[in-house]
Structure formats: structure tokens, C-alpha cells
């Protein structure tokens, strides 16, 4: 989809606060409420605005540790990819799963209460997945989301 300067400005502020109304966006960028609403609608219909995420203080909710895992499959048959994906997606602590090309086959993001809890997830859930081979863990220290090329 082609977007103009105002669309980009909308996306930049909505990435920070998705609850802004068409009226609020319009006031901020000098558009009428209906004009802002039409733009929002167009961005949604084109799939550029693809939903919302709740932003939480994970630590306050008892999840003090986030670990990124690189997983290599030991047996790379097509059936084992599907089995692996189904099984890994069923683990509640696994927050995201991406199939990648490179040193590893999958990139996982895992949330745990603390390092001991992470060890439990790793040993009892991850290491027993069908086809799992080498696993590399990196413990998240800090994270910054950038606006991207807008």
C-alpha cells in the first residue's frame, strides 16, 4: 500500500498508543474527525494496521526473565517441522516462534518467572520437543522498540 506523510505520522503515534481516537488523531494533525477516520479505516483495510498489543510491566506480573532461544532441528524432514511447530506453539511460556534461515531453524522468545523457572521450561518443555537438536539461550537484558522506516 502507498502511504503519505500523514499516514506515516498516524502509524508513528499509534505504535506508541493504539487507543487514540480518530478525533484525537485529527486534532493532532490538522484533519477533521471524518477525514482521520477514513485514513484509519484505509490503513486497517490494507492490513497495515494489524491489531493491537497490550503493553504490560512483565516484572510486576511476576515474569522477571525473558530468554531468546535459537533452536536447531536434529532431523529436518517436513513432517518433523510441522510436529515441532505444533508442539512448541503449545508451550504457554513460549511467547513467539519464527521459522528462520541461517545458523538456527527457529527463533523463540520465552517468558519465565526467574532463572530457575526458565531452567524448568528449558529442560521439561523445550529439550523434549520432537526433533529438537542444538539450543542456544541468550537472556534478555534490555529491549527497545524503534518506530521503523516511517
Amino acid at each position, binding site marked *: 500500500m502507498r502511504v503519505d506523510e500523514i499516514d506515516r505520522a498516524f502509524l508513528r503515534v499509534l505504535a506508541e498508543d493504539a487507543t487514540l481516537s480518530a478525533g484525537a488523531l485529527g486534532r493532532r494533525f490538522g484533519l477533521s474527525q471524518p477525514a482521520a477516520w477514513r485514513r484509519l479505516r484505509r490503513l486497517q483495510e490494507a492490513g497495515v494496521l494489524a491489531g493491537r*498489543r*497490550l503493553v504490560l510491566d512483565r516484572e*510486576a506480573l511476576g515474569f522477571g526473565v525473558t530468554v531468546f532461544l535459537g533452536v536447531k532441528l536434529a532431523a529436518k524432514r517436513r513432517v518433523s517441522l510441522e510436529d515441532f511447530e505444533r508442539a512448541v506453539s503449545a508451550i504457554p511460556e513460549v511467547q513467539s516462534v*519464527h521459522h528462520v534461515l541461517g545458523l538456527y531453524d527457529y527463533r523463540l522468545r520465552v517468558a519465565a518467572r526467574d532463572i530457575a523457572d526458565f531452567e524448568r521450561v528449558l529442560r521439561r518443555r523445550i529439550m523434549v520437543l520432537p526433533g529438537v537438536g542444538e539450543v542456544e539461550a541468550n537472556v534478555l537484558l534490555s529491549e527497545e522498540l524503534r518506530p521503523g522506516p516511517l
Partner: protein
Amino acid sequence: MQISEPDRRLIRQLQRAPDLPLGELAGRAGLSPATCSRHLERLRRAGVIRGQRAVISWAALGYEVQVSLRVTLEKSDPRAFDDFLAAAREVPEVLEIQTFLGRVDVRLHVVARDMAHYQHLYRARILTLPHLAEVEALVQMSEILADRGLPL
């Protein structure tokens, strides 16, 4: 702040559908609308619920390529991290910057319009970042699961 069982139920529902109207949210969390809005207010004030962000589809904007760059730094210089992170922030195509304890020091999540664009970015903007010792690329093939909520 102490997180109660109703708080947990509320956040579970909100993680699934952040834009639920209050009445609907209260019903799903098994609370009255008044109790529900009191809990929400308390969670927001305490900063447990920080807000909501829009998910932008970069593919829909014409960015077909996503790459996870695993970076190790030349750490002999005490300013290595700060210099590297400051320079990485200047690259518009960088969507996420994470630092780690482990074999990888920093991860950059990068989008590009196509492989030619990525190639250019990699050479002109990534390999030129200060204090970079090693970089490995994981090219994203598909998203199997994205941003599942916490298992509360």
C-alpha cells in the same frame, strides 16, 4: 502492587482482545462493570498496564524481508555498547534492539523492501556500525506464533 486473581483474569482477557468494550471485558472476566473499571484504573495507575500499541504490518507497507542480526561487539572499549546502540538507533530500518547475557551481545531486528535492499543496508549501514566484531543473520521465513500473552 499486589496482583489479585480478578486482576489476573482481567489481564488474561485483555491480552487476547485489547479493544474489548468495558461491558464485554467485565463479563468475560466474571466481574461487574463497576468492579472491572476500578481494577483497570488501579492497574493503569500502578503502571502494570502501560498501554496499548498498534501492530504495523511491514509486509503490507512493502517490506518483504525481515532479518534478525545477532551481533557480538569488540568489548575492550568500555563505550562499545553505548556507541553501537546509539549508531544502531540511527538506522531507520532497525525495528528492535535487544541486549543479552550470553553468546550474543546485541540483536537487531531489521526490515528491508527486498533482498537487494537488504544487501545494501547490510553493507552500508550494518557492517559500518562501531565496535562490531561479528554478525550472523537469521532470515525470517515465516511467523509461526507472535506475541502470545503471558501465561498468567
